[in-house]
C-alpha cells in the first residue's frame, strides 16, 4: 500500500523572511546556522519586495519578518508597507532589543500587524547572561509599549536547563506584561542549540514539572492569554509533523536569498537549495529538486515506508534525522519505532552527565564563534 496515501499538496501559506543574520544578542540556542557569518550578501530592498510579491501571488498570507534581528534592517518599515499593501498578515519576530517607541509607531503606520518579542528569563541577571547583552529592562519596556500602541503581542520564552526551574515566574511575567499569547518554546536542538545541547537539555523530571505548571496556567488564563507550548521532542515517542510536511506550507528565505523548505534545511548535505536571485519563487516551489526532495513518501526508508502514521508525521524532521544519525533519509530518531532511538537516549544521558558539572560552558552565538566553528570538520 506504500504510496497510496495522499501527500498534502499546496502552495506556500507561510513566508518566513529572515532579513539578516546580524543580531545584537548572542543566545546560545539560536536557530541560525553555525556558519551564519559566512553568508553576508543580504538581499536588497527591491529583491525582498519581489520575493513578497511573488509569494503573495502564490497564496502566502502569513509573513514572518525575522532574522537575526530584523530591526537592524533600515528598510524594515518600507518592507512592512509593501507587505501590508499586498494583503499579508505581517508578524515582526524580534528580540525587542532596539525596539523604541519611535520604531513601534513608525511600523504601526507602515501597517505592521503583530510583534513577537523574546525574553530569555524572568529576571535581569539570567536574562542578560543568556542574551549575552544587557537587554532585560529594554525588552520589558518594549513589551509595555507594544501593548500601549494596540498591537497583539506574543511573548516568546525559549525553555532549557538554565530557566526551566523558573516556569512559574515566566508565566507571572507574561501576565504582568499583558501578553496576548505566550509561546513556551522548549528548545529544539538545531543550530547553536545542537552545539550547546549538553548544557541546555533538561531532564525528563524537569520537563514534567515545568509542563504541569504550564498546563495549570493554561486553564487559569483561559480567555485572557493563549499559551502555545512547543513540546520537547526528545521526550516524545512520536516525531513532530515537521513543517506540516516538506514543501506543503512553509517557505523560508534566508538573508542571502537562499530558499529553504524549513529554516534549518541549509545544513542538509547535497540538498542544493535554490536562490531567489537565480529562480522565480514559483519555479523554486514547484520544480526545484530541493523542494521536491522529501515530498510524498517515496524517499522513505523502513519503518516509515510502510507505517500507517506516515501521512500524519511524514517521518518527522529531516534535519533532526541528519543531526542525530548522519542520514537525512532516516526515520526521525525521536520515534520509538526508529531503530536509532538510542541516539536520543544517548543525548539525554550525555546531558544528564554534563549537568553534574555546573561549569559546563555555553558557546555564545556571535560572529567570532561562527567563524571559528564553521571551518569544515568531519
Amino acid at each position: 500500500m506504500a504510496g497510496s496515501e495522499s501527500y498534502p499538496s499546496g502552495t506556500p501559506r507561510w513566508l518566513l523572511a529572515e532579513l539578516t543574520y546580524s543580531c545584537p544578542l548572542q543566545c546560545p540556542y539560536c536557530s541560525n546556522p553555525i556558519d551564519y557569518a559566512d553568508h553576508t550578501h543580504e538581499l536588497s530592498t527591491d529583491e525582498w519586495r519581489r520575493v513578497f510579491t511573488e509569494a503573495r501571488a502564490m497564496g502566502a498570507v502569513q509573513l514572518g519578518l525575522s532574522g537575526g534581528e530584523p530591526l537592524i534592517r533600515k528598510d524594515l518599515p518600507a518592507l512592512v508597507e509593501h507587505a501590508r499593501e499586498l494583503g499579508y498578515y505581517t508578524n515582526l519576530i524580534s528580540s525587542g532589543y532596539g525596539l523604541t517607541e519611535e520604531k513601534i509607531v513608525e511600523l504601526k503606520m507602515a501597517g505592521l500587524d503583530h510583534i513577537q518579542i523574546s525574553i530569555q528569563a524572568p529576571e535581569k541577571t539570567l536574562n542578560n547572561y543568556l542574551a549575552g547583552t544587557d537587554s532585560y529592562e529594554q525588552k520589558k519596556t518594549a513589551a509595555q509599549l507594544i501593548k500601549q500602541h494596540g498591537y497583539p503581542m506574543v511573548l516568546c520564552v525559549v525553555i532549557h536547563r538554565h530557566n526551566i526551574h523558573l516556569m512559574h515566574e515566566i508565566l507571572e511575567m507574561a501576565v504582568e506584561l499583558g501578553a496576548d499569547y505566550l509561546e513556551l518554546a522548549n528548545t529544539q536542538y538545531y543550530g547553536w542549540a545542537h552545539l550547546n545541547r549538553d548544557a541546555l537539555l533538561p531532564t525528563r523530571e524537569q520537563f514534567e514539572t515545568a509542563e504541569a505548571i504550564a498546563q495549570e496556567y493554561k486553564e487559569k488564563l483561559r480567555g485572557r492569554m493563549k499559551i502555545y507550548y512547543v513540546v520537547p521532542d526528545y521526550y516524545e515517542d512520536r516525531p513532530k509533523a515537521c513543517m506540516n510536511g516538506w514543501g506543503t506550507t512553509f517557505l523560508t528565505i534566508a538573508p542571502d536569498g537562499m530558499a529553504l523548505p524549513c529554516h534549518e534545511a541549509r545544513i542538509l548535505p547535497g540538498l542544493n537549495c535554490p536562490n531567489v536571485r537565480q529562480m522565480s519563487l514559483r519555479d523554486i516551489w514547484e520544480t526545484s529538486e530541493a523542494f521536491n526532495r522529501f515530498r510524498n513518501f517515496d524517499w522513505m526508508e523502513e519503518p516509515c515506508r510502510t507505517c500507517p502514521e506516515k501521512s500524519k508525521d511524514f517521518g518527522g524532521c529531516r534535519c533532526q534525522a541528519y543531526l542525530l544519525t548522519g542520514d537525512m533519509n532516516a526515520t526521525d530518531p525521536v520515534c520509538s519505532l526508529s531503530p536509532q532511538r538510542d541516539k536520543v537516549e544517548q543525548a539525554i544521558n550525555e546531558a544528564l552527565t554534563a549537568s553534574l558539572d555546573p561549569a559546563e560552558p555555553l558557546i555564545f552565538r556571535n560572529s567570532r564563534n561562527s567563524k571559528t566553528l564553521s571551518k569544515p570538520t568531519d
Partner: protein
Amino acid sequence: MATPLDNSSRLVFSPLHRLQWEESQRKYVILYPEGMVELNLPAAEILKLCDGTRTLDVIVVELEQTFETSGLRDDILEMIESALENGWIRILS
C-alpha cells in the same frame, strides 16, 4: 468575557484579529499572530456584521432577510458564542 451575551448586545470584531477574503483559497479567513482560520461562507457572513453597530437581534433579522429564510437564530447564536470564545469578536459594553 465579563459582559453576558443577550439579544441587545452589540458585537464588534476584535482589533487583534483580521477578517479577510483570500482570493487564492476562495475563502474568508481570520488572521492573527502566526495563525489563520478558514471560514465557511455562513460564518463569514455573520462575522462581517459584527461591526460594533449591530445587535444580535439585528444580525439575525438581516441574515434571515438576506437568505430569504427564517429559523436561523440558533445557528447564528452558536457561531457567535464560538467566536466570542475564540476571541474573534467582543461584546461592546
